[in-house]
């Protein structure tokens, strides 16, 4: 049926081997050598991830988060120091549990107590440059550990979840088989003939590569390019021509003899339209792909991963191509973003990104104090109401997919929007690869036929640098259905969308590794700065007594705490030493998210809480970095004690008195939390601060 066999293009293998031989002294230092002179595809990526996990057991773990339709694993490489970090559940002892003994809560892993960053590639299978960038980042991190102080510190304190192939079936078909497949694979019957995936593309001339077939056709939409006769130029919609017209189709025959070619391929749905955000179906219209949100196994694996890893604050989803980044939103207008998040996205992340890709940064981002002036100026020059609201138009290199001038959404059910809206994550979608930016001596393209100029230049570039191996010259061939014509054209792996291996690809990888490194530096980090212990009262025999702390007097009654006990005031100071806050602007109130909490633990039989509760909610700890262009509105600040908890009314056992008296609401990056407790004996107590996205820290204290 399908003539092509699983094999990589021989030339790439040769080049890869050549690289191994020539660069041996260099790769020797790497435990798992990697080169970027050929695409890895599904097979080599999987092998690389397994090899890395084996070679670096102390700082990596390979997690299978799901399985594609064709049974390929969806893998996340977790990079973090497996010895550092802690989680709250490791410190709280649960007593008198229900007899049913349901084991539905898995033990938390240490990395879940660290601030997390997600990096993914190839949600669209034919955009595998993203996979390469992921592998490059993995390589930089694992080889930089213990070599580079900053990388070492990041791996010790943070966690990186790297998923090089969200869509392994699409990558396999695109790279290994040379059948570009944006969608996932699905076992389905597109043409409703009772057979599944029986008519995909074919290698009709048996050269191992599925290229294109062109034939003369008076109704054809293509002509041959004058300047570069190997290229076919597509005519405009109503464009007329005196030249010979051609039709260009994929190399394909009608496998099931139903009169159509390629009408039932393996390709299924667009995974980046299968997320819940703004997905809808109604009255014969559907926004988004699949029979329901997360219907695809790949989407579901991602949804489940994010549900269970609520420590992620930064996310990148690599696509191709264009050489720019989409920040949210594409599904809704600008106003749905929290003002603070707009500032973080544009003034901090966007600015850095534009610098890295060497593009002009908008003036308003450099002088955020003058935003009002820019807004006034824009009122006269811009028709984009959202730009006027912000004070700047978004530059081409850092944009939203929402069509602001037409006020129309780009699409439905996209991953980055969903990550931002549902989990409160600074998610972005970067469209990798723009030859103008990423090939050093690439000609400047101008005028209306830029696309054609670009193709000519790329063709020339591969002639010069890759011995012309990325393009198959047209050769006469008799198509069994279409008759005489020629087979040839770009080798599909290099036809469009993906950075050429070698220098161009490394250029792309390096810029985006730098960008991800920059983002990692911004992650929050909650620390316990100090715990102060102040013994207020000691006795060997319990008597009635009154203790004065700095708020209410507390009466200790005989018979409540028996034996030798002391009344102790404990003061903990916690601080977010990271650049960004422990939740994004949108984050802390979302379903599934929670404000930061601090616990004082020591066993109920040993301590009695006189003031303050065993755990207290401390809200969101701001970061150290001032957010340019953002003025915090006076917002409701979470009180440090959970006095608003609905459970208090009904199940109160301890006195819940907040140390935060009115007018003393704590904001900023530090919190001071106090407890007044009666302690029996000399137990070791623990202060645990558990910030969902700022990390979990523990400090043992002993009262002597």
């Amino acid at each position, binding site marked *: 049926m399908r003539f092509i066999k699983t094999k990589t293009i021989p030339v790439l293998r040769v080049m890869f081997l050549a690289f191994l031989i020539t660069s041996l002294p260099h790769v020797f230092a790497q435990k798992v050598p990697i080169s970027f002179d050929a695409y890895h595809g599904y097979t080599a990526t999987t092998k690389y991830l397994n090899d890395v996990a084996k070679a670096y057991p102390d700082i990596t773990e390979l997690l299978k988060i799901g399985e594609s339709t064709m049974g390929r694993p969806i893998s996340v490489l977790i990079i973090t120091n497996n010895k550092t970090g802690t989680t709250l*559940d490791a410190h709280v002892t649960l007593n008198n549990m229900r007899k*049913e003994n349901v084991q539905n809560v898995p033990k938390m892993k240490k990395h879940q107590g660290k601030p997390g960053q997600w990096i993914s590639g190839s949600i669209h299978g034919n955009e595998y440059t993203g996979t390469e960038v992921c592998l490059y980042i993995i390589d930089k991190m694992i080889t930089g550990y213990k070599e580079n102080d900053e990388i070492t510190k990041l791996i010790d304190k943070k966690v990186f979840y790297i998923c090089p192939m969200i869509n392994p079936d699409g990558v396999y078909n695109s790279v290994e088989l040379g059948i570009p497949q944006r969608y996932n694979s699905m076992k389905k019957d597109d043409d409703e003939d009772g057979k599944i995936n029986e008519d995909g593309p074919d290698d009709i001339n048996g050269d191992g590569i599925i290229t294109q077939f062109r034939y003369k056709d008076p109704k054809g939409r293509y002509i041959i390019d004058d300047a570069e006769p190997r290229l076919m130029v597509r005519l405009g919609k109503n464009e007329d021509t005196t030249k010979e017209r051609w039709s260009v189709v994929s190399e394909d025959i009608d496998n099931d003899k139903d009169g159509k070619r390629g009408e039932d391929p393996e390709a299924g749905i667009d995974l980046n339209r299968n997320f*819940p955000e703004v997905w809808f179906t109604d009255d014969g219209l559907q926004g988004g792909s699949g029979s329901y949100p997360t219907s695809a196994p790949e989407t579901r694996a991602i949804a489940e991963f994010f549900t269970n890893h609520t420590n992620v604050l930064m996310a990148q989803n690599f696509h191709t191509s264009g050489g720019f980044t989409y920040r949210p939103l594409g599904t809704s207008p600008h106003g749905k973003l929290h003002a603070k998040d707009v500032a973080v996205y544009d003034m901090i992340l966007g600015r850095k990104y534009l610098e890295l890709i060497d593009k002009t940064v908008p003036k308003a981002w450099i002088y955020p104090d003058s935003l009002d002036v820019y807004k006034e100026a824009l009122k006269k020059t811009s028709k984009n109401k959202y730009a006027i609201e912000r004070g700047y138009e978004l530059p081409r290199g850092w944009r939203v997919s929402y069509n602001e001038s037409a006020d129309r959404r780009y699409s439905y059910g996209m991953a980055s929007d969903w990550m931002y809206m549902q989990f409160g994550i600074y998610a972005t979608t970067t469209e990798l690869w723009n030859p103008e930016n990423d090939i050093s001596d690439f000609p400047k393209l101008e005028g209306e036929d830029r696309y054609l100029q670009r193709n000519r230049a790329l063709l020339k570039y591969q002639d010069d640098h890759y011995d012309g191996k990325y393009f198959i010259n047209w050769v006469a061939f008799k198509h069994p259905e279409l008759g005489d014509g020629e087979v040839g054209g770009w080798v599909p792996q290099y036809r469009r969308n993906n950075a050429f291996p070698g220098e161009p690809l490394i250029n792309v990888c390096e810029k985006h590794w730098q960008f991800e490194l920059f983002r990692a530096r911004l992650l929050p980090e909650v620390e316990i700065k100090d715990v102060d212990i102040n013994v207020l009262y000691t006795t060997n025999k319990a008597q009635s007594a009154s203790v004065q702390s700095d708020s209410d007097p507390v009466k200790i009654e005989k018979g409540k705490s028996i034996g030798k006990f002391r009344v102790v005031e404990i003061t903990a100071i916690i601080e977010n030493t990271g650049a960004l806050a422990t939740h994004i602007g949108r984050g802390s109130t979302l379903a599934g998210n929670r404000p930061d909490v601090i*616990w004082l633990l020591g*066993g109920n039989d040993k301590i009695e809480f006189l003031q303050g509760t065993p755990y207290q909610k401390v809200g969101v700890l701001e970061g150290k970095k001032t957010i340019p262009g953002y003025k915090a509105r006076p917002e409701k600040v979470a009180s440090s004690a959970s006095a608003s908890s609905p459970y*208090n009314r*009904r199940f109160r056992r301890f006195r819940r008195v907040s140390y935060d008296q009115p007018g003393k609401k704590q904001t900023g990056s530090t919190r001071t939390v106090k407890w007044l407790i009666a302690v029996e004996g000399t137990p070791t107590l623990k202060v645990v601060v558990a910030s969902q996205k700022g990390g979990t820290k523990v400090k043992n204290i002993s009262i002597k």
Partner: protein
Amino acid sequence: MKTLKTISNITGILLFGFIFLFNSGKLSAQNKLQTSPGGYHGENDFSISWKRYYTYPEWTDMMKDIQKKYPHLATIESIGKSRMGREQYLMTITAQSAGKHNTKPAMWVDGAIHGNEVNGVTSSLYLIWYLLTRYDYDSYVHELVNNTTFYILPGLNVDAIASYVEFPNTPNNPREPYRPEDNDGDGLYDEDQTEDVDGDGELSTMYMEDPKGDYKLSTDKRRFIRISDPLEDGKRFRMIGSEGFDNDGDGLINEDDIGGPDPNRNFPYGWNLQAGNPYPMSELCTRNVFEFQLAHPNIFVGFHYHNTGRLIMYQAPPDIRKNLTPQQSREQEEQVQERLKEMRKTNKYAQLVSRRVAPEYQHDMDVQLDIVTTGARILKNYRPVLSGLSGQAPASTYYMLGAYSYLIELWGMPTFDADEDGDGSVSDVEYLKWIDLELTGEGWIVPHKVKHPDLGDIWIGGSPKKHMRRTPPARYVEMEAEKNSKFVLYCASQFPKAEIEEVTVMPATHDLLWIEIRVKNDRVYPTYSDRSIKLGRAVKDQVIIESSKNVSQIELIEEYNLFEPTNQGTKFKPLTGKTTEFRLKGKETVVFRGLIKLDGSKGWIEVKVKSKNGGTDSKKVNISVGP
């Protein structure tokens, strides 16, 4: 046009039998048929006690056993595993000799999507039992099982269902699938669950003696009652809350019980994050259901059993009224009530709502009102109300599958017989009297003293036991199940049936003859819903004309509407060729007319009607034109 005369000069119109697809002669005769209401209907052929609740192993074994007894009518399969690894068993009931399950329109029934609503399990099991045991005895059931497929999933949320029956629980928990959740935002998941502190197998309420408390014991010492007079003397109590320990030592009790997303907010249609966190179809138990439903496009109606409240919640098309002022909506409501009052003069169960739907949805709205009017009659003290969206299962059944759907809130507090003073609610005193008289005292937890490891000396009690509020005491299980089964069966009996009522041939002019075909559906449901048209899932009905070689059809253009000259009001659909597509609504007769040409004096035509959900029918007519 020449005046048409009726057919007296056409002789020999023969009618060849009326063949309903599924009810063909292949079926064995119903030799155990019972026609007397006082006779035996098969209930001991497979006997089950309906006076108790069953554990998960018990009721799944029961399903397997009854399937073995009736393998020609029932098959059993697991549609998948739950979060905790329990199988979700589904039973498919249809007479296999009369056609494969996926070729017949199907009724979907699921129970207990909320694990604490285990009455849905017993009601679904009862339906299985009723269909299977009565098949040989009851001609009504016999025909339904021949013509219809029933997909019955007695327990949807199997993990919580299993716990609810076997362990001490409050009426409200466990309700959701067991996805770990941090309800109290303390950073721990499901860490403070309910416990049976006194070990009596029930979860009640905890009280503590407290001079400042606002409760006291009633004089009969059975209840804690609120103190109204602040100066009243006597022992006082403070309510702590439902029974349990402080597992995580944070000072709160039962504040983070087993739970997870509400499975009935987990379906895709109208899903939202606030109610449906974390994502649509996130739970295995709901995803398995929806995947099954998507793979079975023959599902025509869906029933979803819940507790409690005695409600028939029916899914209706969207309301198209927008931006009504309060005044306008009040006026509309008044008009509807006025009309309803009129309607109820002849039928006290009549239903009408002030929802206005788009014209292309009007039939669905009418069908639903018709069905629930009868539903209210069958279920008697159940009240039909409109069902909502927000990720609820019935919303997806209707809006995404195009199947009519009903959410039944089974059972309810015994207001109808315990409310002695007729004030519309059952007071504690009336409730206790109901327990004493009708449950002979069973079902109440008398307050008693207990030692609590976190709280010291406490009191527990003053509340009803399990299966007293949300789920009925076991003795009422059959009462609820029986009438609810009847409602499901009634709906199945109203599945569409396309019949050729009459084929007539009349002379037109010269050698041309008029052919008139009357196709009727006397059931409430149409052959496909308005919604399925919108979804592109509808398969149109067809009239197909076959004939002897000497008969040819004159094609009429589609827009050509013919009128009976003597009765201008009757509308015909023109036959547009060998096959004419149409839609047969509920309780509708569609009349087709076409022109045929007969060469010679004798010939025949055969008319076939094909409908995906309405079945097929055919009639052959011999024509002879003679002197």
